């Protein structure tokens, strides 16, 4: 109660500090000092401190189950485990917005500390733009989604958190994703500021790369953790459903990946200035759009837990203001590139990066239109359509083939001009191996032969070249690891989709069913009472030719709120996961059992991790 008040007033004070910072930095612009005034650092830190204080107030309200707070009442329950009381803080709309704000204020403070070698005007303008975003979020949190709303009379018990969100992966997924999202706000503010200062050059590129690497690493990790969660928690055995909320996190990622490559061209050759700026603005816009689309409840999606149109409208207007502002600045301060540097040779690293961007933007456009088109169509013509996996596969896969082939040789081209070397046996040989292996794979499956073979050939070829580059001395380690990770990811996903196998049946206790070469035996069930749910644990025995494994899928009946969830049991191994999930049926004796063999699942996670490690290495290299 008292803490809610403290949290609320901290936020109001924080908002006030934003205005003070605006005035101070404006005044500071016209002084002759080279450095920023000390008090700007202090106020910025104080602002961060106030938001974190407010955030801790909210966490504490969750821990002690203070139901006079509406957010706590809506999303918590006394019987919820301690850990999920804490993670429940950001598992809802209000709390997650407060977390956005927290990261926003943290990052601008860090920016001020780590940009001391940059010109004063540039730093102040970045602070200014960032404060505009921060003010927008303060207003949004305070007036459209206040986490400290007071309830009277005080309810005795809360409504509880959706059980599928009570999970360790989903406890860390939002904060990590938000670090990536919000990192892009610094990139956004900094590009606008660099544009006004006519500062878009190698020096700026080197400096902002740090933030690009930071955002990219966290975004990659965040998406991967979300995907792992979907794999074991949603119980369908897939890891990517082309669900709108998943797509929305992929959009800023693709944009940021394009930027990550383009910024290197800007750094090395001082070209593509306008394009770099457009990508910076677009990345942040997609991050914001993500928040808007998810939080307004517009999407028909498994992830949408909030439904409030006024909130959506607020973010939409805010988004428009930011986009208009950036377009105006872009128009007024167009960067110029000297004619001499404009020339691109067709066989050069810069051209290959352009090609990378070309594909990235294409992939982005497919996902963007696939996600938003049904919404617009419904609003405009009242017609409802679904855009699902087949659409994305049809538009993405053919282009992926070309992308993979380009990626096999692009990174080895030189700046400015490369020449055709004699094609050596060394390059041909992996190609031949790729063809042989792909053919061997395809004849064993029922997929469409020619298309799949070509797809596999390109994936294998990229994998071989990326592995070979890994041991080469040229190029940076971060790049090599990320590229290798990507090639492994593509390969693992393809192999996984081709070799996945499954079996589904209604079984009763004691029954045994033969599936291909193995026997699935439903041995028994046991029920347990847990603190906030009742659990039914089944015991299955899967007998292979070689070994016997036991799988124990579970059905949980949560009491607050009253929701039923199926917890899959997964036997993870190096080459193949065994995934078993069961569901209750109306007929009490029978359970619906679904057993899946998912090859190379572990490799998908490993390669995602490799991508992030590559990003992290790039980040720490900047610090040296």
């Amino acid at each position, binding site marked *: 109660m008292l803490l809610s008040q403290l949290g609320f007033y901290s936020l109001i004070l924080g908002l006030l500090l934003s205005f003070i910072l605006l005035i101070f930095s404006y005044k500071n612009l016209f002084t002759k000092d080279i450095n920023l005034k000390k008090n700007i650092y202090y106020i910025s830190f104080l602002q961060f401190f106030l938001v974190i204080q407010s955030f801790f107030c909210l966490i504490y309200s969750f821990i002690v189950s203070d139901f006079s707070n509406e957010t706590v009442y809506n999303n918590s329950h006394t019987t919820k485990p301690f850990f999920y009381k804490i993670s429940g803080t950001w598992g809802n709309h209000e709390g997650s917005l407060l977390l956005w704000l927290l990261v926003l204020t943290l990052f601008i403070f860090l920016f001020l500390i780590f940009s001391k070698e940059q010109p004063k005007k540039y730093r102040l303008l970045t602070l200014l733009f960032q404060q505009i975003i921060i003010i927008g979020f303060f207003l949004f949190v305070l007036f459209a989604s206040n986490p400290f709303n007071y309830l009277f009379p005080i309810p005795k018990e809360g409504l509880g958190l959706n059980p599928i969100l009570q999970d360790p992966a989903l406890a860390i997924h939002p904060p990590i994703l938000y670090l990536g999202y919000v990192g892009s706000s610094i990139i956004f503010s900094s590009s606008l500021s660099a544009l006004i200062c006519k500062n878009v050059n190698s020096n700026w590129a080197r400096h902002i790369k740090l933030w690009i690497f930071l955002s990219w690493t966290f975004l990659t990790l965040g998406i991967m953790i979300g995907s792992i969660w979907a794999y074991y928690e949603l119980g369908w055995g897939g890891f990517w459903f082309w669900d709108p909320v998943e797509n929305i996190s992929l959009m800023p990622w693709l944009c940021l990946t394009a930027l990550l490559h383009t910024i290197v061209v800007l750094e090395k050759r001082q070209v593509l200035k306008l394009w770099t700026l457009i990508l910076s603005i677009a990345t942040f816009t997609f991050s914001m759009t993500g928040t808007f689309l998810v939080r307004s409840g517009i999407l028909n999606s498994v992830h949408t837990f909030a439904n409030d149109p006024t909130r959506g409208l607020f973010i939409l207007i805010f988004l428009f203001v930011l986009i208009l502002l950036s377009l105006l600045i872009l128009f007024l301060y167009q960067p110029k590139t000297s004619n001499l540097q404009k020339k691109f040779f067709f066989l050069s690293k810069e051209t290959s990066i352009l090609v990378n961007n070309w594909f990235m933007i294409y992939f982005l456009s497919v996902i963007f239109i696939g996600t938003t088109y049904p919404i617009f169509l419904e609003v405009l013509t009242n017609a409802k359509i679904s855009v699902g*996996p087949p659409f994305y596969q049809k538009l993405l896969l053919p282009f992926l083939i070309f992308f993979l082939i380009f990626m096999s040789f692009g990174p080895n081209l030189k700046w400015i001009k490369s020449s055709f070397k004699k094609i050596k046996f060394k390059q041909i040989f992996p190609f031949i191996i790729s063809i042989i292996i792909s053919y061997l794979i395809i004849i064993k499956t029922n997929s469409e032969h020619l298309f799949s073979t070509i797809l596999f050939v390109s994936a294998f070829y990229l994998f071989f070249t990326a592995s070979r580059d890994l041991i080469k001395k040229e190029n940076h380690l971060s790049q090599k690891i990320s590229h290798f990770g990507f090639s492994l990811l593509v390969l693992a996903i393809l192999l996984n989709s081709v070799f996945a196998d499954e079996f589904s049946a209604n079984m009763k206790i004691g029954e045994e069913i033969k599936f291909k070469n193995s026997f699935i035996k439903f041995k028994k069930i046991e029920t347990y009472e847990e603190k906030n749910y009742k659990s039914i644990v089944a015991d299955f025995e899967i007998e292979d030719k070689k070994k016997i494994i036991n799988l124990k899928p579970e059905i949980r009946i949560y009491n607050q709120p009253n929701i039923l969830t199926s917890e899959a049991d997964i036997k993870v191994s190096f080459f193949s996961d065994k995934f078993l999930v069961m*569901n209750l049926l109306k007929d009490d004796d029978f359970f619906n059992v679904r057993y899946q063999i998912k090859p190379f699942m572990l490799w998908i996670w490993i390669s995602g991790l490799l991508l992030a490690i590559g990003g992290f290495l790039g980040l720490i290299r900047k610090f040296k």
Partner: protein
Amino acid sequence: MKYCKFFLIIIFFILILEESLKANNNILLVDKISKNLRCLICQGQSIYDSQSDFAISMKLLIKKKINEGQSEKQIYDLLKSKYGAWIVYDPEINEKTLVLWIFPLILFIFGGILIIRKVFIN
């Protein structure tokens, strides 16, 4: 020496393949069709993935139609006329969805032209 390395790679992969290839993929038509259909009463689940009453009766219906000798396309058409285009995950190309299908392709061509201009004409 080099050749040895390559042959080791081949052997390694063949071993992996032998390990995982035993599970020969035999997708049933029912599964294939129900994966492409939205469960109308669920949140973002396909009929294949769902255990709701609606999904279960849908799967039975699809099975029945297959046994009657209907083709995949006929079944989609039947369901679309019954439940609307919303039920299929793969939107057909018509005047309403034309933009959806060709917008990315146009953008791709446009990007290609920009790159060609950048590289060859200057």
